[in-house]
């Protein structure tokens, strides 16, 4: 016999209470004067034998009942009784990743996995502990009936999720259940992208069920990107379709179709437009539905509005002036005074793109300007030497002369570009600060093709009147929101408060970020493109990803059920013990009552 909760055996000490009461009942120190003691003596004499027997019997019954209750509380497992299975902690890991939404013979893979989960739950007993863990991070606990109901609510996730994390979580659950017999059942379609990471289990037996279902051919929208992210008001949507044959597509802004056509395999779509919509707009690139519908649409978000008015001072140098001219010609900026591009040692105001001074002698003047404008950064001593510039879209650019940007108290670490290991371009409220002048002796960045788009995006995103980022994430992926964002608006229009780092919503779509009552950016949630590649891992590949001492990978439903409940051990004896204890207490009550009535009749 073994015990699931042996600490409860300490409750057996309570059995000493009736024993002590029985032994001490004649040792009471309380003395009471009573003249009619002779009658008491006579009553005791005439009934003492019967009383002693009754009290002894009552004491034994009470001690035995308490011992049995303590034993039952310790949840003993015994092999004496036959049939059934021992109490087992079973966690069912259900792969509900996007790929399980693929329909084969008019039935989704997830439906097949759900049926298998129901078969496992159907063999559960009341003593078992059960969990249902899905790859979207949901954990449900309860009885077999509860989990069967919960299974009906499980829908395919809009992303790959993390089956390795789900398995690790399942092992933690069964390990802490306090039941020696435990098992993890993994129900998966074996999709390669879902099994990117491997998982190592300590000692928990694992049964992996992979239904023998051939994945269907699949078409998907692999990419959908607005270029630029801010249309003023012209721009283009570029999209890429993964298909083995031709497929009709549609690009929509909101509910309005922007364009539609037919694309071939590997073809890149470019849809240009100058829509009438203004502000933050959600759009989709859609394909005609196939067997896996979740990846037939891909979402994007963009901002449409007037270009920013930009002025360039003479101190900024010719490269800056040429770049702004190019932006004006592309309708991405207009001549104006909304934003100024100037050297920090000149006559500067905010909002502005501030450049480092051309000569080290002007560093002091530049720092005084920064101080006057309340910018918590200072230029350090000039440094020379060629270092690579790193950051989004600036590959290949280098810096030869730079002034290290030294943060002052209150400086935010919003670094845009890095030269070597030090910040080169930083941004803050209404300013962007560069660590070099835009001259040929200082950096070759202005002559790179990436410079004009970078400058345009930087001015539009950081200094424009409707500034705000577009973030992209897969469902469930952690996302760090901009500091000033305090809310999020779902595709359905429901708003909720958010801040800091959040998990991307489980459903794909465009979630507008809000600051107060205004939209301040967008979070675009799309499935990982790799999840659309329906490629199954074979048993060997799966075995390599699950390192467990007792692992079985099978497509046989009966094997999974048999393994899940085949743990060695006996059945719980708690129930019978409680029944016996209750029976003893009933007998005790009967003896006590009979004793009283017997005395009365005597």
């Amino acid at each position, binding site marked *: 016999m073994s015990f699931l909760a042996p600490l409860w055996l300490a409750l057996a000490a309570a059995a000493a209470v009736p024993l002590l009461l029985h032994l001490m*009942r004649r040792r*009471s120190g*309380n*003395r*009471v004067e009573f003249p009619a*003691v002779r009658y008491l003596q006579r009553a005791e004499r005439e009934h003492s034998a019967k009383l002693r027997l009754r009290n002894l019997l009552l004491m034994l019954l009470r001690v035995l009942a308490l011992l049995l209750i303590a034993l039952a509380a310790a949840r003993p497992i015994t092999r004496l009784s036959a049939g059934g299975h021992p109490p087992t902690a079973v966690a069912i890991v259900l792969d509900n990743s996007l790929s399980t939404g693929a329909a084969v013979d008019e039935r989704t893979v997830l439906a097949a996995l759900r049926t298998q989960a129901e078969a496992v739950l159907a063999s559960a007993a009341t003593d078992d502990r059960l969990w249902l863990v899905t790859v979207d991070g949901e954990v449900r606990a309860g009885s077999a009936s509860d989990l069967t109901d919960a299974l009906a609510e499980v829908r395919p996730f809009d992303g790959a999720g993390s089956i390795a994390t789900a398995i690790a979580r399942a092992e933690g659950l069964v390990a802490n259940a306090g039941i020696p017999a435990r098992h993890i059942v993994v129900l998966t379609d074996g999709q390669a992208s879902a099994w990117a990471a491997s998982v190592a289990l300590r000692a928990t037996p694992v049964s992996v069920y992979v239904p023998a279902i051939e994945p269907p051919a699949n078409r998907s929208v692999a990419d959908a990107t607005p270029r630029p992210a801010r249309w003023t008001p012209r721009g283009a949507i570029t999209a890429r379709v993964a298909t083995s044959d031709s497929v009709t597509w549609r690009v929509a802004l909101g509910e309005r179709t922007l364009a539609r056509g037919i694309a071939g395999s590997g073809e890149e779509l470019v849809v240009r437009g100058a829509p009438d919509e203004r502000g933050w707009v959600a759009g989709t690139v859609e394909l005609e539905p196939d067997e896996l519908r979740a990846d037939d649409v891909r979402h994007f978000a963009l901002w449409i509005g007037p270009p920013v008015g930009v002025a360039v001072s003479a101190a900024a140098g010719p490269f800056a002036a040429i770049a702004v001219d190019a932006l004006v010609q592309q309708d991405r900026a207009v001549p104006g005074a909304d934003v100024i591009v100037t050297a920090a040692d000149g006559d500067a105001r905010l909002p502005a793109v501030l450049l480092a001074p051309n000569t080290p002698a002007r560093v002091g003047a530049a720092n005084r300007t920064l101080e006057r404008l309340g910018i918590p950064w200072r230029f350090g001593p000039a440094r020379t030497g060629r270092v690579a510039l790193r950051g989004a879209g600036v590959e290949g650019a280098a810096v030869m002369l730079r002034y290290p940007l030294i943060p002052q108290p209150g400086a935010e670490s919003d670094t845009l570009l890095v030269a070597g290991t030090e910040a080169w371009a930083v941004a803050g409220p209404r300013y962007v600060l560069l660590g070099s002048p835009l001259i040929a002796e200082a950096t070759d960045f202005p002559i790179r093709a990436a410079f004009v788009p970078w400058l345009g995006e930087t001015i539009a995103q950081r200094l424009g009147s409707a500034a705000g980022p577009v973030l992209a994430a897969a469902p469930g992926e952690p996302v760090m929101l901009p500091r000033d964002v305090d809310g999020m608006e779902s595709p359905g229009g429901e708003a909720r408060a958010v801040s800091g780092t959040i998990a991307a919503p489980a459903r794909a779509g465009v979630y507008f970020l809000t600051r107060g009552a205004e939209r301040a950016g967008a979070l675009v949630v799309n499935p990982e493109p790799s999840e659309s590649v329906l490629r199954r891992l074979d048993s060997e590949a799966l075995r390599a990803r699950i390192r467990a001492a007792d692992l079985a990978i099978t497509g046989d439903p009966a094997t999974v059920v048999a393994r899940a409940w085949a743990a060695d051990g006996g059945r719980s004896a708690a129930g019978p013990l409680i029944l016996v204890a209750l029976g003893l207490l009933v007998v005790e009550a009967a003896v006590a009552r009979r004793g009283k009535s017997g005395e*009365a009749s005597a």
Partner: protein
Amino acid sequence: MDSPRAPRADLFDPAALAALGRIEIIARWIVDGFIAGLHRSPRRGFSVEFAEHRPYQPGDDLRYVDWKIVARADRWVVKQFEEETNLRAAIVLDVSRSMNWTGAPTRLTKSAYAERLAAALALLLLRQRDAVGLVRYDETIRTVIPPRARMAHWQRIVGALGDQGAGLGSRADDALGHVARMLRRPGLVVLISDLLLETVPVEQAVRTLRAQGHDVVVLHILDPLERDLSAGGEAVYVDPETDVAVPVTPAEVRDAYRATVAAAIDEWRARFTVVGAAYATITTDVPFGVPLRRAFSSRERLP
């Protein structure tokens, strides 16, 4: 108690009544109430014959007002009667330590109850012009007051009730033997005791008294708790006289105890009935009128 309409003290709760005054006053109230009760009784009272007239006093039985004199002379007088027999009575009172006990602070001790009962009984007898004496005993005879018929004798009896007592024994047989010697002609002997003593010597003594022609009334005083053991937790119960200790859980032996007490009472009743003595159990929570009435009704039933 001066008004005929006053509440009858003999029907009061004994403890509440005892709290109202000294034993003489209480005894008078009891007797006045008891006599007033007899007025309403269908019984005609004791066997007496007319002797003389005396002025009416409040509280006098209206049956004995001489209405002819009232009508003729407008003078209120009552007829006084004389007993056919000159009864000599002795009250034998147990004052042992077992009597000095009560089961609840709201009740009188058995001694206090018995003393008030004895005082009332003596007064009642004296008012009937019986001669009354008192014998108090515990392990020895503590007080002996020979029977006298004068009303002033009652004060002596009441005074003797406060004498020393509470000894560690109860020699009722000796006390009854003393009474047998004290009453030279047949009379009335009232034994007031909790009867926590041996039965045979007492039975022998009563038998002797009966053989001498005395009427014997035994008032067995019990505290209600002694009768039914209705309260109390697990404890060592100690006899205050013998120091015998018995550890008892009342809940376990209550029924057996009640049966034992009932058997003891039945035994006493049987023994006294055989020898022709009247016997009544009195618990200390009943009004004094009850034992008085039992004492005299028992006497009426005697052969």
